[in-house]
């Protein structure tokens, strides 16, 4: 087990180096002159030249990259061009709020997806299965930026049950209950597509497992269906479900941006989107690196969990091939 974890950790290193190269190259791809973005439309040519030297933009790319990587490793993500303050000050708190939203949404998605998937698999190919799957697929395919608006209209504006925007009340807010209240609508909205995917995945895996010979043997022996489902099928169906669940959590970290826009949730996704259109490259880089890092770690965790659940996957490569 330890060997497996070390092996997987070693695999993460080249990935992270690659990620940093890709993120660094984002600057080079971005259209427009960096210095004119920084100085605003009225920056003079001479001021631009001074700035270019000051920022080291006149040096060759590999040197710029090395310098940048060195800073990142020391926890310095640079300074925002638009807000003129350290990127970490802006990005870290927002990452926390996004993680809260994505984490809650993922939990909801696991719950909804897992339960409906098992339900559908138990009734595979019957009407219940079809209806449940179609329903969850419809919810999962509905554009979130539209669905969110409908939920706000009903729950916030018509019935006045839940707040419509933000993460906490600006007046007398900020307590745990207040945040929870603000969390419900966006988390439910964000969870639906992932719930649909996990449900489909769970259903497929369960059907597959239920058709295996040992299950048939167990059934032939007269073991009750519920017991088979719980004791045998579920355990063997878990690994791929865990893998997908990890990926869904990672996906939500980047994918809640639509929900953040609709609910004015002060998260990293929305900040990232704003910074992309505002060409605030240091924030884009910082946010992307953070999300990618989290995604890599979550996948790593899912693999380790799988190795624990299913010893067969305990080769560094094995987990990824399941």
């Amino acid at each position: 087990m330890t060997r497996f974890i070390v092996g997987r950790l070693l695999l993460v290193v080249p990935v992270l180096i690659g990620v940093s190269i890709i993120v660094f190259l984002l600057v080079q791809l971005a259209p427009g002159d960096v210095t004119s973005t920084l100085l605003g439309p009225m920056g003079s040519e001479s001021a631009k030249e001074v700035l270019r030297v000051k920022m080291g933009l006149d040096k060759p790319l590999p040197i710029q990259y090395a310098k940048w990587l060195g800073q990142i490793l020391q926890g310095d993500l640079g300074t925002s061009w638009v807000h003129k303050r350290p990127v970490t000050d802006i990005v870290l708190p927002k990452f926390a709020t996004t993680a809260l939203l994505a984490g809650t949404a993922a939990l909801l998605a696991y719950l909804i997806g897992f339960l409906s998937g098992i339900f559908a698999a138990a009734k595979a190919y019957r009407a219940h299965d079809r209806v449940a799957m179609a329903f969850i697929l419809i919810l999962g395919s509905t554009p979130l930026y539209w669905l969110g608006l409908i939920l706000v209209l009903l729950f916030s504006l018509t019935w006045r049950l839940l707040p419509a925007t933000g993460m906490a009340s600006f007046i007398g807010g900020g307590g745990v209950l207040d945040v929870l209240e603000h969390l419900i609508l966006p988390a439910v909205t964000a969870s639906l597509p992932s719930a649909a995917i996990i449900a489909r995945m769970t259903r497929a895996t369960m059907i597959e497992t239920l058709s295996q010979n040992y299950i048939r043997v167990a059934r032939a022996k007269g073991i009750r269906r519920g017991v088979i489902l719980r004791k045998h099928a579920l355990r063997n169906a878990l690994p791929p479900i865990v893998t997908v669940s990890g990926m869904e959590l990672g996906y939500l970290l980047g994918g809640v941006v639509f929900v953040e826009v609709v609910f004015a949730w002060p998260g990293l996704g929305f900040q990232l989107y704003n910074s992309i259109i505002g060409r605030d490259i240091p924030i884009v880089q910082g946010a992307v690196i953070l999300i990618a890092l989290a995604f890599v770690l979550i996948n790593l965790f899912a693999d380790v969990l799988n190795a624990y659940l299913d010893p067969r996957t305990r080769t560094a490569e094995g987990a990824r091939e399941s």
Partner: protein
Amino acid sequence: MTTLSPTPDLATSAPASRFGVFLRRLKSACQTYAKDPASLAALSFLLLVAIVAIFAPYVAPYDPHEMIGWRNSLPGEDGLFLGADGDGRDVLSRLIWGGRVSLLTGVVPTLLSMVVSLLIGVTAAYIGGWLDQIVMRILDMFFAFPIVLMATVVAGILNPGLFTICIAIFIALLPYITRLVRTTTLQVKRQPYIEAARAGGASNWAIASRYVFPNVVAPSIVYTTTLMGLMVVLGSALSFLGLGVQPPEADWGTMVSEGRSVLRKAPHVTIFPGLAIVMTALAFGFIGDGLRDALDPRARRR
């Protein structure tokens, strides 16, 4: 919406050694598919949508960019079956024209991604060794970016437009499909009939093209089909962020987001394109299910 991991039951292993066998399998697959009413209905629906979209200039009753009715006319008013949008344009005509863009963003980059993934995945897995390692590490790098993040950043850095969305989806999907292809190829490679063919003196190229490829294509098609539905939704979401097609062109996502401001006054402006997105995504999902049942003998209805 995204990140659908390859389901393990797609990793088919049925041998197909000759073209005749392939034809017979195709026939039986078609028969299986035709027996499933849901997938059949889904296929017919999509074909209809595709035909209507392709022939949009002849089918659409009005110019999708022209102000035809009063702003936000309800369905039935002004002689417009589905009403007019906030700009007084015919919702039905825009729906028909918008279908072109939405289907295009769903289908073309996904298909392209599948083709490229097949080439990369089969090559890497079949040749193996350091090539495989390098390809997998590069894929891992791209894999570190959640798909929406990848697509948003790519679409945000290039200039917004249809081409940008397609590129973004193409790049974002590559690691996912390639990984499925590679895994399947590795499984096929271990099958006894490959050993047999090799022992019988077949060349690498012959084995790859005649035995490996056909067995890898089937699960890839199933996976890709399901992804197409998700990509219609993702494409529409990118348009919502303003990263997609630019006015006056519109896809369904743009239509939904344009109508959000008048949700209470004129709900039809968002409901119809919203329905179109949902139904299309649903149809792709059902087709994917049907294809899987048809192409994978083990997953067939029991």
